[in-house]
Structures are given as C-alpha cells and as structure tokens.
C-alpha cells in the first residue's frame, strides 16, 4: 500500500484508445518497467428509491484489494467493507436500486518499476470506451506530501505536464496517512467526469 495518483490521459483525435495505451505501455517498458499481470476496477451506481431528492451510492471494487469493497456516498463518506457487502445491497433493493447503464469499468495492465506500480487502462461506461486513466503508486511511502515531488518526477517522464499538481481529492489530504479509500475517491472523481461528459454528448430525449 502506498500513495497513488490517478490522472486522465487525453486521447488525441484520429487515434484509438488502444493505440494510445500501447504507446504508454512501450514507454513504461523503455523506462525499465515489467508487466505484472492485469488489474480491474469497477464502479456500480445505486440510486435511492424513496428519498427526494434522490441520493446516489457508488460501490467500487478493485483487484488490488480483492477482499474489500468501497461504498462512497455523494457527500464523500466512505465505507470500506468486505465483499459480502454486495449481498447486503441486493437485500436493500427496495431502498437502493442499481443502475446498470451507469456501471463503469477500468481495466488494463499493471506494471512494476522498482517500488512504483503503474496501471494504465481504458475506462468504459456500460461497455463503451470513454477514455484512458493512468495511475502511479509509490508503495514505500504513506504520506502524499512527502513523496509528491518524487511521484511528479516519474509522472512527468511518463505523461508530461498533465501531472502538474496533485489530484484535487488528494490535495486536501496531503499530510494524512494514505489509505486505499483515497485512491477510490480519485477513481470516482474521474468516473463522474466521464459520466458527465457522456451525458453532455448524448442528445436530450
């Protein structure tokens, strides 16, 4: 467990997502990184049935923490529970209903570079490609403010100026001891942005 930073990597026009991902993979390999299998993050979207205005609850799973699930409310309150929590949610059908069309997935390959773990993959909303996310984790450190400069140096050589400042959700917690929930909050920020962008591009019915 260490400090993670997640960034969106823009896909230039005229190129497919998998092409960009391939270029990034090659870049990591030239930096000395080695492939260490695949990873998978998914985010399920639940909406309250009785409350008005409706509240949303997001449940995230990550292959990095296979025994846990992370439930995050709109307010940012996070609950870290065992994966049994999913079974509980299905019993709460009358209060919270899953919206399948809003399920997001982030899949790709995982690389190890000395003590860094780099994850590059594509994000899909209900099966369609939405964008690319890059996550860099520095495992030995647990305080973001201490290792931010270090991470920035690596991120610069990987994705350039995109990583000029820490991710917004991490910025306010730079001096706290890092927890996996902070990574999930970053994922959720990006997922929400992708969802918003998808909703904007869709013509209103």
């Amino acid at each position, binding site marked *: *467990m260490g400090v993670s930073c997640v960034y969106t990597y823009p896909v230039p026009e005229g190129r497919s997502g998998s092409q960009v991902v391939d270029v990034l993979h090659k870049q990591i390999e030239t930096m000395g990184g080695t492939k260490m299998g695949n990873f998978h993050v998914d985010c399920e979207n639940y909406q309250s049935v009785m409350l008005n205005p409706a509240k949303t609850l997001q449940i995230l799973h990550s292959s990095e923490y296979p025994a846990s699930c992370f439930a995050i409310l709109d307010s940012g309150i996070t609950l870290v529970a065992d994966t049994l929590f999913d079974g509980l949610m299905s019993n709460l059908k009358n209060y919270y209903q899953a919206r399948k069309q809003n399920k997001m997935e982030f899949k790709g390959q995982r690389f190890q570079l000395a*003590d860094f773990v780099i994850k590059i993959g594509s994000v899909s909303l209900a099966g369609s490609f939405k964008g690319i996310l890059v996550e860099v984790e520095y495992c030995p450190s647990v*305080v973001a403010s*201490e290792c931010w400069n*270090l991470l920035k*140096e690596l991120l610069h050589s990987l994705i350039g100026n995109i990583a000029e400042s820490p991710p917004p959700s991490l910025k306010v917690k730079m001096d706290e001891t890092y927890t996996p929930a902070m990574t999930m909050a970053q994922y959720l920020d990006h997922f929400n942005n992708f969802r918003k962008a998808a909703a904007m591009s869709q013509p209103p019915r």
Partner: protein
Amino acid sequence: MNLEQAQADLILQSLHLIQKLRNGVGQVFKDLSDGISEYVEELPEKEDSEGNKDKSSSQNQKESTGSSHEKSEEQHEKHRTILKTLKKSLETISHDFSDLEKTGANIGPVQMFSNIDNLSLDPVDKNTVTHSQLLQSYKWTNKMHELANQAVSILSQNTLKRTQSPKFTNPKRQKGNLLAACLANPAAIDQLVTQLNQNNPDAKFSLSRPLGSCGVMQIELGRTLRAIVVLRGLTIEWVKVKGYDETFKTDDGQMDLWSGSRYQVFQKITHHAEAASLHYYAPLMPEIAIKSFVLWLRGFSNLFSAPCQKCGKYLQNNMPPTWRDYRSREAFHDVCRM
C-alpha cells in the same frame, strides 16, 4: 628432481621433433601441389602450339612434332626431379618419424597429480563437461585464495576491527574494549533508550528482549520507516530497515529479525545501515556510537522529500536518494555519492 628435469627435456625434444616432422610433411604437400600445377600448365600450351601449327603449312608439321618431342623430354626431366625431391622429403620424414619414435619410447608415463587428470583420459567422459568445469572451478578457487590473502593484508591495517580472530586484531587490546562495550548492564541499556526517546522527539524507541539478554531496539521514524537494532551489550549487532506499513512481527506474533523489506528502497537502506553500524563502531565509547548511529538514521526522515545534493533530482534509477552522508547527513543517490 633430476628425473623430472630429464623427462621435461625429453618432452621438449620430442615436441621439437614433431614440429620438424610437421614441417617436412608440409613441404611434401607443397612440392606435390607445385609439381602438379606445372604439369597442368604445360598441357594447354602444347595444344595451343599444335593448333597454331595446323594452320600453317604441313611442311612445318614434322618440325613441330619434333619440338613437341623435345618438350615431352623436358617434361619427363621435370617429372623426374619432382619425384626425386619428393622421395628425398619422404625419406627425411621417415627419418624424423623414427627419431620421434625413439625419443617417445624414452618418455616415461606422465605422473598424475590428482584424479581429475585421470578423468580427462577417460574416453567415456569425453563428451561431458565435468573436466573443464572442474578446471575452471580450480582456477576460481585459486583466484579467491589470492584475493582473500590480499583482503587479510588490507584488513589487518584497518583500525575498525570487530572480528575477534587473532589474525585481524591484537587480542590484548581487543579484550579490554569488548568488556566495556559488550557486557553493559541491562539497566544502562534501558536508560539509554529512555534517553534516546527524550532527545529525539521525531522518533519512537522501544526496547524488548526476546532473545534473553540481548536487547532489541525498535525505532519508528516519523511516518517514513521502521528499523530494528539488535544490541549485544551496547554494540550494534544487526540492523534491519522496513517500510512504515511493514511489521517486524511474524504471523504468530513472534519477533521477526530476519526477513527483509519488500520494498527495494528499504532493502538498500538496510545495506547502508549495516555499513553505518560498522562506521559508528567505537568500543571505548559505546553510547556515543549508538547515539551517532541513531542521529544518522534520523537523517532518513526526509527520505522521500529531499532531492539529491549532487544531481538535484528526486529519482535516479527509479529510487529516491537512499544514502545519507556520515558527517553532514545530506541526501545522495547511491550512484551520486562518489
């Protein structure tokens, strides 16, 4: 000794003879190839001249056949000389060969030094690589022996001695030092730890004795690292450094002194800390030695946030500056400290 010398002379002599023999055989082949090539060259010339003469008048034909007769005579002459030289060289060869045989008969069987030489003679083992590998390992052992001897001579000049072997140290002097440093009172160690806790607010020190009389000091440095220091009296015996999220306890709650960190950074720092524990070794002033070691270790509190003093960068080979100078405690990359 004399016998050996004579044997060596004989071998040398036979080697010379072999050289001579080879030279002779080479000469024969050279002569043979020269002779044949001359003979081959003659033939087309003869045909050519005959062809020219066909074109000219038939009167000249008789003369031409006459001249060709002369030419064949010449050729025969040449043939004979070639054969003569060939015969001569062959005779020299047979002479040389019999010489070699005679000398060879005088050479006694080569004395085997070890079973390995027998192994090399075994035809079954021809295809295996055992012999060459053994020879190689002999070479390495010899080399290692040589280097070890050099190391002993260098180490015996060094004043920082911890090994009790009489080869390295003056036993009389060592005895007094060891008594002071190693047989420290447990209460004195407890006192030292409380003192360290008071003087270093950024680090937490705790002492336990899982191994009996030896004290094991655990150091928690901010939120950066954890270190374990095994003390024999007041001498540092063993150092391990791990990450803040790692533990020095095994699954069943026992203290784990041996396993290393899973992070490359802390594996590197463990190596450096081991070197530092030798650097700060002062048997006459053991407390000062431990205090200066702890002071040095505290230099790692900015492990992830300090850039290298030489190259100004945070990362080198994807590692932060893992070295702290012994005097100034400035941060350097492992490769930048030279």
